[in-house]
Protein backbone atom coordinates (compact mmCIF):
# COMPACT_ATOMS: atom_id res chain seq x y z
CA UNK A 1 0.00 0.00 0.00
CA UNK A 2 2.86 2.37 0.89
CA UNK A 3 4.79 1.36 -2.24
CA UNK A 4 1.70 2.01 -4.34
CA UNK A 5 1.19 5.37 -2.62
CA UNK A 6 4.87 6.29 -3.21
CA UNK A 7 4.60 5.29 -6.88
CA UNK A 8 1.52 7.46 -7.35
CA UNK A 9 2.98 10.49 -5.62
CA UNK A 10 6.23 10.01 -7.64
CA UNK A 11 4.18 9.76 -10.80
CA UNK A 12 2.25 12.92 -9.94
CA UNK A 13 5.47 14.78 -9.16
CA UNK A 14 7.01 13.71 -12.49
CA UNK A 15 3.88 14.72 -14.40
CA UNK A 16 3.89 18.04 -12.57
CA UNK A 17 7.58 18.57 -13.32
CA UNK A 18 7.08 17.59 -16.94
CA UNK A 19 4.06 19.87 -17.21
CA UNK A 20 5.99 22.74 -15.67
CA UNK A 21 8.91 22.10 -18.02
CA UNK A 22 6.50 21.89 -20.98
CA UNK A 23 4.90 25.13 -19.87
CA UNK A 24 8.30 26.80 -19.56
CA UNK A 25 9.25 25.54 -23.00
CA UNK A 26 5.95 26.78 -24.38
CA UNK A 27 6.46 30.17 -22.80
CA UNK A 28 10.01 30.30 -24.13
CA UNK A 29 8.78 29.26 -27.58
CA UNK A 30 6.01 31.85 -27.38
CA UNK A 31 8.54 34.50 -26.45
CA UNK A 32 10.71 33.50 -29.42
CA UNK A 33 7.69 33.53 -31.71
CA UNK A 34 6.64 36.91 -30.40
CA UNK A 35 10.12 38.21 -31.12
CA UNK A 36 10.02 36.65 -34.59
CA UNK A 37 6.61 38.17 -35.31
CA UNK A 38 7.93 41.50 -34.15
CA UNK A 39 10.98 41.17 -36.41
CA UNK A 40 8.80 40.11 -39.32
CA UNK A 41 6.46 43.01 -38.72
CA UNK A 42 9.46 45.35 -38.73
CA UNK A 43 10.75 43.80 -41.94
CA UNK A 44 7.30 43.98 -43.48
CA UNK A 45 7.11 47.63 -42.61
CA UNK A 46 10.54 48.15 -44.15
CA UNK A 47 9.44 46.29 -47.28
CA UNK A 48 6.29 48.39 -47.42
CA UNK A 49 8.38 51.53 -47.22
CA UNK A 50 10.81 50.17 -49.83
CA UNK A 51 7.93 49.27 -52.12
CA UNK A 52 6.46 52.74 -51.71
CA UNK A 53 9.86 54.26 -52.47
CA UNK A 54 10.25 52.08 -55.56
CA UNK A 55 6.72 52.92 -56.71
CA UNK A 56 7.45 56.62 -56.28
CA UNK A 57 10.73 56.19 -58.19
CA UNK A 58 8.91 54.29 -60.96
CA UNK A 59 6.30 57.04 -61.18
CA UNK A 60 9.10 59.62 -61.40
CA UNK A 61 10.85 57.55 -64.08
CA UNK A 62 7.57 57.27 -66.00
CA UNK A 63 7.13 61.05 -65.86
CA UNK A 64 10.74 61.44 -66.99
CA UNK A 65 10.20 58.88 -69.78
CA UNK A 66 7.11 60.73 -71.01
CA UNK A 67 8.99 64.03 -70.91
CA UNK A 68 11.86 62.48 -72.91
CA UNK A 69 9.39 60.98 -75.39
CA UNK A 70 7.70 64.33 -75.86
CA UNK A 71 11.09 65.98 -76.23
CA UNK A 72 12.16 63.30 -78.73
CA UNK A 73 8.99 63.79 -80.79
CA UNK A 74 9.48 67.54 -80.59
CA UNK A 75 13.09 67.24 -81.76
CA UNK A 76 12.01 64.84 -84.50
CA UNK A 77 9.36 67.31 -85.69
CA UNK A 78 11.88 70.16 -85.56
CA UNK A 79 14.32 67.98 -87.48
CA UNK A 80 11.70 67.33 -90.14
CA UNK A 81 10.93 71.04 -90.32
CA UNK A 82 14.60 71.92 -90.67
CA UNK A 83 14.86 69.25 -93.38
CA UNK A 84 11.96 70.86 -95.22
CA UNK A 85 13.61 74.27 -95.06
CA UNK A 86 16.99 72.82 -96.06
CA UNK A 87 15.45 71.04 -99.05
CA UNK A 88 13.58 74.17 -100.13
CA UNK A 89 16.73 76.25 -99.82
CA UNK A 90 18.86 73.69 -101.67
CA UNK A 91 16.35 73.52 -104.51
CA UNK A 92 15.98 77.30 -104.86
CA UNK A 93 19.70 77.94 -104.96
CA UNK A 94 20.71 74.77 -106.78
CA UNK A 95 20.45 76.14 -110.30
CA UNK A 96 21.41 79.13 -112.39
CA UNK A 97 18.42 78.63 -114.66
CA UNK A 98 15.35 80.82 -114.14
CA UNK A 99 13.09 78.01 -115.37
CA UNK A 100 14.65 75.57 -112.89
CA UNK A 101 14.05 77.99 -110.02
CA UNK A 102 10.41 78.36 -111.09
CA UNK A 103 10.16 74.55 -111.21
CA UNK A 104 11.63 74.42 -107.71
CA UNK A 105 9.02 76.92 -106.47
CA UNK A 106 6.28 74.71 -107.93
CA UNK A 107 7.76 71.56 -106.35
CA UNK A 108 8.06 73.27 -102.97
CA UNK A 109 4.43 74.43 -103.04
CA UNK A 110 3.12 71.07 -104.29
CA UNK A 111 5.26 68.67 -102.28
CA UNK A 112 6.24 70.54 -99.14
CA UNK A 113 3.33 72.93 -98.58
CA UNK A 114 0.62 70.80 -100.20
CA UNK A 115 -1.23 72.66 -102.93
CA UNK A 116 -1.51 71.84 -106.60
CA UNK A 117 -2.89 75.27 -107.44
CA UNK A 118 -0.36 78.07 -107.59
CA UNK A 119 0.78 81.05 -109.57
CA UNK A 120 4.06 82.96 -109.72
CA UNK A 121 4.05 86.60 -110.80
CA UNK A 122 6.94 88.93 -111.57
CA UNK A 123 6.70 92.70 -111.35
CA UNK A 124 7.02 94.61 -114.63
CA UNK A 125 10.06 96.85 -114.99
CA UNK A 126 7.85 99.98 -114.81
CA UNK A 127 6.11 98.46 -111.74
CA UNK A 128 2.63 98.93 -113.17
CA UNK A 129 1.70 95.31 -113.54
CA UNK A 130 2.37 91.78 -112.33
CA UNK A 131 3.19 89.33 -115.09
CA UNK A 132 2.13 85.71 -114.60
CA UNK A 133 5.35 83.78 -115.30
CA UNK A 134 4.17 80.30 -114.32
CA UNK A 135 1.14 78.57 -112.87
CA UNK A 136 -0.30 75.18 -112.11
CA UNK A 137 -3.89 74.01 -111.57
CA UNK A 138 -5.39 77.48 -112.11
CA UNK A 139 -6.87 79.39 -115.03
CA UNK A 140 -3.80 81.31 -116.16
CA UNK A 141 -5.73 83.67 -118.45
CA UNK A 142 -7.87 84.97 -115.57
CA UNK A 143 -4.81 85.74 -113.47
CA UNK A 144 -2.57 87.47 -115.97
CA UNK A 145 -2.11 91.23 -115.79
CA UNK A 146 -2.76 91.80 -112.09
CA UNK A 147 -2.18 95.43 -111.14
CA UNK A 148 -0.42 96.37 -107.90
CA UNK A 149 -2.94 97.53 -105.31
CA UNK A 150 -5.85 95.72 -106.97
CA UNK A 151 -7.31 92.58 -105.37
CA UNK A 152 -5.51 90.49 -102.79
CA UNK A 153 -2.53 89.61 -104.98
CA UNK A 154 -2.11 93.23 -106.09
CA UNK A 155 -2.47 94.54 -102.52
CA UNK A 156 0.07 92.01 -101.35
CA UNK A 157 2.52 93.16 -104.01
CA UNK A 158 1.99 96.82 -103.28
CA UNK A 159 2.23 96.49 -99.49
CA UNK A 160 5.06 93.97 -99.61
CA UNK A 161 3.27 91.96 -96.94
CA UNK A 162 2.05 88.37 -97.02
CA UNK A 163 -1.62 87.38 -97.03
CA UNK A 164 -2.89 84.23 -95.36
CA UNK A 165 -6.61 83.49 -95.57
CA UNK A 166 -8.35 84.21 -92.28
CA UNK A 167 -5.49 86.21 -90.83
CA UNK A 168 -4.82 89.89 -90.47
CA UNK A 169 -2.66 91.88 -92.88
CA UNK A 170 -2.92 94.66 -95.46
CA UNK A 171 -5.10 92.49 -97.72
CA UNK A 172 -7.29 91.16 -94.91
CA UNK A 173 -10.13 93.52 -95.74
CA UNK A 174 -10.14 92.64 -99.45
CA UNK A 175 -12.74 90.04 -100.43
CA UNK A 176 -11.27 87.05 -102.23
CA UNK A 177 -13.46 87.03 -105.32
CA UNK A 178 -13.20 85.74 -108.89
CA UNK A 179 -9.91 84.03 -109.66
CA UNK A 180 -8.71 84.86 -106.14
CA UNK A 181 -11.67 83.02 -104.61
CA UNK A 182 -9.66 80.01 -103.50
CA UNK A 183 -6.58 81.91 -102.41
CA UNK A 184 -4.97 80.39 -99.31
CA UNK A 185 -1.81 82.46 -99.15
CA UNK A 186 0.00 85.09 -101.12
CA UNK A 187 3.65 85.96 -100.51
CA UNK A 188 5.48 88.93 -101.98
CA UNK A 189 8.89 88.17 -103.44
CA UNK A 190 11.19 90.75 -101.92
CA UNK A 191 14.82 91.53 -102.83
CA UNK A 192 16.52 94.16 -100.67
CA UNK A 193 13.17 95.65 -99.71
CA UNK A 194 11.87 95.84 -103.28
CA UNK A 195 8.91 93.66 -104.30
CA UNK A 196 9.91 91.76 -107.43
CA UNK A 197 6.89 89.49 -107.66
CA UNK A 198 4.37 87.36 -105.84
CA UNK A 199 3.77 83.66 -105.20
CA UNK A 200 0.07 82.87 -104.81
CA UNK A 201 -1.04 79.56 -103.33
CA UNK A 202 -4.66 78.62 -103.92
CA UNK A 203 -6.61 75.54 -102.73
CA UNK A 204 -4.72 73.11 -100.50
CA UNK A 205 -4.73 69.37 -101.19
CA UNK A 206 -7.95 67.65 -100.08
CA UNK A 207 -6.30 65.81 -97.20
CA UNK A 208 -4.62 68.98 -95.95
CA UNK A 209 -7.16 71.01 -93.94
CA UNK A 210 -5.03 74.08 -93.24
CA UNK A 211 -1.55 75.57 -93.27
CA UNK A 212 0.74 74.41 -90.45
CA UNK A 213 3.50 76.42 -88.72
CA UNK A 214 6.18 74.93 -90.99
CA UNK A 215 4.15 76.04 -94.05
CA UNK A 216 4.29 79.63 -92.83
CA UNK A 217 8.07 79.27 -92.53
CA UNK A 218 8.26 77.80 -96.02
CA UNK A 219 6.16 80.67 -97.38
CA UNK A 220 8.42 83.18 -95.66
CA UNK A 221 11.44 81.38 -97.09
CA UNK A 222 9.89 81.51 -100.57
CA UNK A 223 9.31 85.24 -100.12
CA UNK A 224 13.00 85.83 -99.45
CA UNK A 225 14.97 83.05 -101.07
CA UNK A 226 12.83 82.39 -104.17
CA UNK A 227 12.91 86.14 -104.79
CA UNK A 228 16.72 86.22 -104.65
CA UNK A 229 17.04 83.04 -106.73
CA UNK A 230 14.60 84.27 -109.40
CA UNK A 231 16.22 87.69 -109.50
CA UNK A 232 19.79 86.40 -109.71
CA UNK A 233 18.96 83.79 -112.37
CA UNK A 234 17.27 86.53 -114.43
CA UNK A 235 20.41 88.63 -114.13
CA UNK A 236 22.64 85.66 -115.01
CA UNK A 237 20.50 84.78 -118.03
CA UNK A 238 20.37 88.39 -119.23
CA UNK A 239 24.13 88.77 -118.86
CA UNK A 240 24.55 85.43 -120.66
CA UNK A 241 22.41 86.67 -123.51
CA UNK A 242 24.43 89.89 -123.66
CA UNK A 243 27.71 87.99 -123.63
CA UNK A 244 26.47 85.67 -126.35
CA UNK A 245 25.43 88.72 -128.38
CA UNK A 246 28.87 90.29 -127.89
CA UNK A 247 30.61 87.05 -128.83
CA UNK A 248 28.49 86.65 -131.95
CA UNK A 249 29.27 90.29 -132.80
CA UNK A 250 32.96 89.63 -132.19
CA UNK A 251 32.77 86.57 -134.47
CA UNK A 252 31.29 88.76 -137.18
CA UNK A 253 27.90 87.10 -137.16
CA UNK A 254 26.21 90.37 -136.24
CA UNK A 255 26.89 93.94 -137.35
CA UNK A 256 28.81 95.80 -134.64
Amino acid at each position, binding site marked *: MTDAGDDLSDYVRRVRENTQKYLRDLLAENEKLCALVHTLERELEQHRKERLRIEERLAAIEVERRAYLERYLDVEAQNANV*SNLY*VAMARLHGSTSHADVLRAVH*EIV*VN*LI*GSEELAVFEMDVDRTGLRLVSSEGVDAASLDGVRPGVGIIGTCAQAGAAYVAGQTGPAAGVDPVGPEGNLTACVPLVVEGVVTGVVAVFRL*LRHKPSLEPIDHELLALLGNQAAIALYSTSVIERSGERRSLHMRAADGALPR
Partner: protein
Amino acid sequence: MDAPKLKVLLVDDSTTVLIMEEVLLRRKYDVLKATSGAAALKIAADQRPDVILLDVVMPAMDGIEVCRLMRGLPATRFTPIIMVSTRGEMATVQAALASGATGFVTKPIDAHQLTSKIEHYLGRAP
Protein backbone atom coordinates in the same frame (compact mmCIF):
# COMPACT_ATOMS: atom_id res chain seq x y z
CA MET B 1 31.09 45.79 -86.67
CA ASP B 2 27.83 47.46 -87.69
CA ALA B 3 25.36 45.45 -89.75
CA PRO B 4 25.12 46.63 -93.37
CA LYS B 5 22.40 49.19 -93.91
CA LEU B 6 19.22 48.13 -95.66
CA LYS B 7 18.61 49.63 -99.08
CA VAL B 8 15.73 51.93 -99.88
CA LEU B 9 14.88 52.89 -103.46
CA LEU B 10 13.28 56.32 -103.87
CA VAL B 11 11.35 56.89 -107.08
CA ASP B 12 9.98 60.34 -107.90
CA ASP B 13 10.20 62.73 -110.84
CA SER B 14 10.47 65.64 -108.38
CA THR B 15 14.01 66.46 -107.27
CA THR B 16 12.55 68.21 -104.22
CA VAL B 17 10.84 65.02 -103.04
CA LEU B 18 13.93 62.90 -103.72
CA ILE B 19 16.13 65.25 -101.66
CA MET B 20 13.52 65.40 -98.91
CA GLU B 21 13.22 61.62 -98.67
CA GLU B 22 16.97 61.18 -98.85
CA VAL B 23 17.55 63.69 -96.03
CA LEU B 24 15.03 61.83 -93.88
CA LEU B 25 16.30 58.33 -94.58
CA ARG B 26 20.04 58.43 -95.28
CA ARG B 27 21.05 58.05 -91.62
CA LYS B 28 19.42 54.63 -91.40
CA TYR B 29 19.42 53.35 -94.97
CA ASP B 30 21.50 53.18 -98.11
CA VAL B 31 19.55 55.38 -100.49
CA LEU B 32 19.10 54.61 -104.19
CA LYS B 33 17.28 57.12 -106.39
CA ALA B 34 15.39 57.03 -109.67
CA THR B 35 13.55 59.86 -111.42
CA SER B 36 11.50 57.66 -113.76
CA GLY B 37 9.69 54.34 -113.75
CA ALA B 38 12.04 52.81 -116.30
CA ALA B 39 15.11 53.76 -114.27
CA ALA B 40 13.44 52.44 -111.12
CA LEU B 41 12.78 49.04 -112.69
CA LYS B 42 16.41 48.73 -113.77
CA ILE B 43 17.81 49.78 -110.38
CA ALA B 44 15.37 47.49 -108.57
CA ALA B 45 16.42 44.49 -110.67
CA ASP B 46 20.14 45.24 -110.26
CA GLN B 47 20.28 46.40 -106.64
CA ARG B 48 17.43 44.48 -104.98
CA PRO B 49 16.32 47.19 -102.53
CA ASP B 50 14.74 46.18 -99.22
CA VAL B 51 11.98 48.75 -99.53
CA ILE B 52 10.73 51.04 -102.30
CA LEU B 53 9.06 54.47 -102.07
CA LEU B 54 7.23 55.02 -105.33
CA ASP B 55 5.56 58.22 -106.54
CA VAL B 56 2.14 57.66 -108.12
CA VAL B 57 2.06 60.56 -110.59
CA MET B 58 5.04 60.44 -112.94
CA PRO B 59 5.38 61.21 -116.64
CA ALA B 60 5.75 58.37 -119.17
CA MET B 61 5.08 55.49 -116.76
CA ASP B 62 3.05 56.18 -113.63
CA GLY B 63 3.70 54.61 -110.24
CA ILE B 64 0.74 52.22 -110.51
CA GLU B 65 2.19 50.70 -113.69
CA VAL B 66 5.71 50.59 -112.24
CA CYS B 67 4.39 48.82 -109.13
CA ARG B 68 2.57 46.23 -111.27
CA LEU B 69 5.75 45.58 -113.27
CA MET B 70 7.85 45.36 -110.09
CA ARG B 71 5.55 42.66 -108.74
CA GLY B 72 6.43 40.65 -111.85
CA LEU B 73 10.17 40.91 -111.21
CA PRO B 74 11.76 38.17 -109.08
CA ALA B 75 13.91 40.85 -107.37
CA THR B 76 10.93 42.87 -106.13
CA ARG B 77 8.06 40.35 -106.03
CA PHE B 78 7.87 40.53 -102.23
CA THR B 79 9.64 43.85 -101.57
CA PRO B 80 7.54 46.32 -99.57
CA ILE B 81 6.44 49.09 -101.94
CA ILE B 82 5.07 52.27 -100.36
CA MET B 83 3.27 54.52 -102.79
CA VAL B 84 3.65 58.26 -102.26
CA SER B 85 1.20 60.77 -103.70
CA THR B 86 -0.46 64.15 -103.40
CA ARG B 87 -3.67 62.33 -104.37
CA GLY B 88 -4.96 60.99 -101.09
CA GLU B 89 -8.46 60.08 -102.32
CA MET B 90 -9.77 56.54 -101.89
CA ALA B 91 -9.71 55.70 -105.63
CA THR B 92 -5.97 56.38 -105.84
CA VAL B 93 -5.24 54.41 -102.67
CA GLN B 94 -7.31 51.48 -103.95
CA ALA B 95 -5.60 51.57 -107.36
CA ALA B 96 -2.21 51.60 -105.64
CA LEU B 97 -3.05 48.65 -103.41
CA ALA B 98 -4.61 46.76 -106.34
CA SER B 99 -1.35 47.17 -108.29
CA GLY B 100 0.48 45.39 -105.48
CA ALA B 101 1.57 48.25 -103.25
CA THR B 102 2.12 47.41 -99.61
CA GLY B 103 1.25 50.83 -98.21
CA PHE B 104 0.39 54.40 -99.07
CA VAL B 105 1.69 57.77 -97.84
CA THR B 106 0.35 61.18 -98.84
CA LYS B 107 2.37 64.29 -99.66
CA PRO B 108 3.43 66.54 -98.04
CA ILE B 109 5.37 63.75 -96.41
CA ASP B 110 5.10 63.44 -92.65
CA ALA B 111 8.58 62.32 -91.58
CA HIS B 112 7.38 60.35 -88.58
CA GLN B 113 4.64 58.59 -90.52
CA LEU B 114 7.04 57.69 -93.34
CA THR B 115 9.79 56.26 -91.14
CA SER B 116 7.26 54.38 -88.99
CA LYS B 117 5.72 52.78 -92.08
CA ILE B 118 9.09 51.75 -93.47
CA GLU B 119 10.10 50.22 -90.12
CA HIS B 120 6.73 48.50 -89.91
CA TYR B 121 6.97 46.94 -93.36
CA LEU B 122 10.54 45.87 -92.69
CA GLY B 123 9.30 44.08 -89.59
CA ARG B 124 11.25 46.36 -87.32
CA ALA B 125 8.36 48.14 -85.68
CA PRO B 126 8.92 48.86 -81.99
